[in-house]
């Protein structure tokens, strides 16, 4: 039987402002096993991105339990969270968030600068070739189409061979 990659129990996230409180996640329970491919669907504002941000160790829940590859991100400090982000999680953001001053190849190379574990890395050029962008290596984000930007973002998310790939 496969281990759980992501396990959430009564996970809750509330965004508080001066005037109101917005409940983005209301005590959700999720279990995703290693190797599983899961799609989360829902209307805009349903909390999909909030959930991915919690699973991606970018944010902390208001309450509940969260287990990512055997770690509880709620209890980890900023340094350990960044290690999980760079070594174990690949994130394709909704707006891609490529660095405008770096070309496609450099954008994909970027996580390698921050990585400590170099054994699992994939060659950025090979990855860009796999997503069909070997002819766009030196192109900057403003020279790429929306689809090409997305493919660069996918290559960047995969470069450290993450155990979890989150695509918003």
């Amino acid at each position, binding site marked *: 039987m496969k281990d759980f990659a992501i396990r959430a129990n009564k996970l809750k996230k509330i965004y508080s402002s001066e005037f109101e409180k917005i409940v983005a996640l209301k005590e959700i329970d999720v279990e995703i096993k290693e190797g599983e491919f899961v799609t989360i669907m829902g209307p805009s504002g349903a909390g999909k991105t909030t959930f991915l941000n919690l699973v991606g160790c970018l944010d902390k829940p208001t309450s509940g339990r969260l287990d990512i590859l055997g770690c509880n991100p709620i209890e980890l400090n900023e340094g350990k969270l960044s290690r999980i982000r*760079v070594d174990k999680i690949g994130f394709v953001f909704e707006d891609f968030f490529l660095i405008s001053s770096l070309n496609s190849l450099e954008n994909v190379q*970027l996580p390698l*600068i921050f990585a400590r574990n170099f054994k699992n890395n994939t060659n950025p050029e090979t990855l860009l070739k796999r997503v069909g962008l070997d002819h766009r290596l030196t192109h900057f984000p403003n020279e790429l189409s929306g689809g090409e930007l997305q493919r660069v973002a996918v290559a960047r998310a995969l470069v450290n061979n993450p155990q979890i790939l989150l695509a918003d």
Partner: protein
Amino acid sequence: MKFFVLAYKNLKRRKSRSFLTIGGVAVAVAVLVCLLGFNAGYQEALTSDVDKMGYQVLVTAKGCPYEAATRVLKGEAGLKFIDEDIYKQIISDPDIDKITPLLVQLVYDPEKSDGKGGFDSYSGIERSYMELKPNVKLKSGEWFSSDDANEVILGYDKAESIQKKLQKTVGDKISIPGEDTNLVIVGIFEKTASLEDGDFFLPLKTAQRIFEIEGKLTSIGIKLKQIDRLQAFEERLYPIASIQVISMSQVKGTILNLVNSAKILIMSVAFIAIFVAIIGVINTILMSVFERTQEIGIMKAIGASKLDIFKLIWIETLIICTLGGIFGSIIAIFGGNLVELLVRKVMPYAPGGKLLLVTPELLLFSFFGVIIIGIISGLYPAFRAASMRPIEVIRSGE
């Protein structure tokens, strides 16, 4: 791709701002190098000038001792004349090792400096002058044929300018402006790298005759057998009311004290320049951090740690300061001569030789100084950048 490349690319993106900040650091470094170089150079040049004089003690007419000594250092006439009899009176003093009488006169030459006019210095000397000044040697020609011959020996620079302007050299005749007497050039002194290189040297008696001040001197240069006998020597001369004894080491100390006082003011200006440069560096990096809030957030979101961001921003600061340090050193090396030229024009007395001493040690000191300043300047912007929370950036981009 490494951190350094990433930092360099960030700076390259904002070329004008980076260039101006590097320029600010470069100016601060150049100012620091020039000021410290001037301090070291002036001290060395003054010491060299005083040592080259060969005198430890100078006897002049009563007046301000420092003004008199400075005038003699500059190769100008003394304040007043002293009787030659005093020279004859003190020559047998037991503490004196070497002694020479001097008569210095300034003569206005309307043709000097391409017709702008200026003063030339004519020194009446005796052979004992050469004994007191070991670095003064004849390059060509010979010593005066007699004690009152109408002959002249030229300082090295003076000989060069006369050769260039009048095509005259050893064996030719020159005249003193406003005087009827012609003088035969009998010799040229070797370069001494002092102000005396620009002087005319005549036999003492000839100078007294031409300038109609027979039996008078402007000063007497003395080297004592032992410098610690100075006080006893001074006390013996005390009864001669019309003269004063000046120790050259005291003069040197006084001039250096004056220069040191000015140095404090100048150093304050240098530190203000450095402070402004630091503010400029902090401002540039901080602005860049604020403008790149999203980028920094993205880097943290894809795994950059606080230390990584801190390192990145710090490297940017270091690149600015290192380039500023390099360009500042280059400006100081090549612009130093211009500064020296300006200083010479402004200062009432500037010794011969190099005034601005830009040594490798000084360049290294300034260069590493600016690197340390860079490290300190980068702390706050780097800390601000490292403290950003990735989620805030991700959410603001939603």
